[in-house]
């Protein structure tokens, strides 16, 4: 087993090295190094909005996109948030919707007083329509429960 694996690897390595040296013409060689994105802000917003708006989005994908958004240096646009909340509704996950609102609020950072009211105002109609309570209405703007100590 080990032997055959080794011989396969060496065979594959040999053929791939031999072939690439013939195959790749110099003109098509591009440096695949730079990760600079040429995507504009509007394109990013549209991409995420359409991602969340997909009818067959599942729990894995919606969480992935939300986590990704939380990792970016931005506050999601209201239209992305609206699409995400509607996706939560399609997936029947109320907790996820509130959690995402909390995350968005947290993303506002030091400008929370300026940005968060604007977002609430923009997404207010959707919140009404889906009967989603804001974290403030849920009482989650202040700590509610303490963690029980695991040592007791």
């Amino acid at each position, binding site marked *: 087993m080990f032997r055959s694996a080794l011989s396969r690897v060496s065979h594959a390595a040999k053929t791939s090295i031999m072939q690439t040296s013939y195959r790749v013409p110099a003109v098509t060689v591009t440096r695949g190094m730079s990760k600079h994105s040429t995507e504009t802000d509007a394109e990013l917003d549209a991409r995420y909005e359409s991602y969340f708006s997909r009818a067959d989005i599942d729990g894995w994908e919606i*969480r992935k996109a939300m*986590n990704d958004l939380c990792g970016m240096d931005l506050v999601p646009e209201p239209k992305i948030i609206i699409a995400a909340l509607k996706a939560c509704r399609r997936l029947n996950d109320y907790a996820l919707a*509130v959690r*995402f609102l909390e995350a968005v609020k947290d993303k506002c950072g030091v400008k929370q007083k300026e940005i968060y009211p604007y977002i609430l105002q923009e997404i207010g109609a959707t919140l009404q329509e889906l009967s989603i309570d804001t974290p403030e209405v*849920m009482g989650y703007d202040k700590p509610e429960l303490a963690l029980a100590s695991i040592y007791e």
Partner: protein
Amino acid sequence: MSPSDHLPACQKNNTAEMALTPLSRNALKVMLRQVSKHQQIAAASSLSKIGNREVVGFGLNGDASYIDRVDFPMPAIRFKENNPDIQALREKEKGDWGKLTLEEKKALYRASFCQTFSEMKAPTGEWKSIMGITLMGASFAVWIYLWMKLFVYSPLPDTLTEEKMQAQLKRMIDLRANPIEGYSAQWDYEKGDWK
């Protein structure tokens, strides 16, 4: 059937050159079997620990684990295990959310997540004990110093008394020590005083 019988003809030549003795072949077989067994156990372990919690996403690193992080708020599994109460609530969640009471909404949230953002970010007050213990350590060091001063060190040499230091300075000036930038440069030898 020898182990190399099932290989394509082109690979037999290669493998024949690297033939292993039957002994090392057996040892290798046993090792590989053990490795794959360990891998199976490791793969099962994260799932075996979560009870009947629902796996809902990828999470931080693909592990079926729960962790509250503000920069990564959607963990891979729900916080609470499924029980009939939650199941019933989830059925109700499929309908109009307007019919959920605030209590039910909170129960749903707490079934999925452990801490809210404000709870994650709430100050723990731990800085007080850290500060206190650090200062205690620092003051203990002062006590050690005082104890050493009393019981370990001999008294300071008498060359450090005021009059002996004055005499030392006088002698340095008389010897014109360091006349460019030192004491002697500050001394006016005609006046017999500091410049």
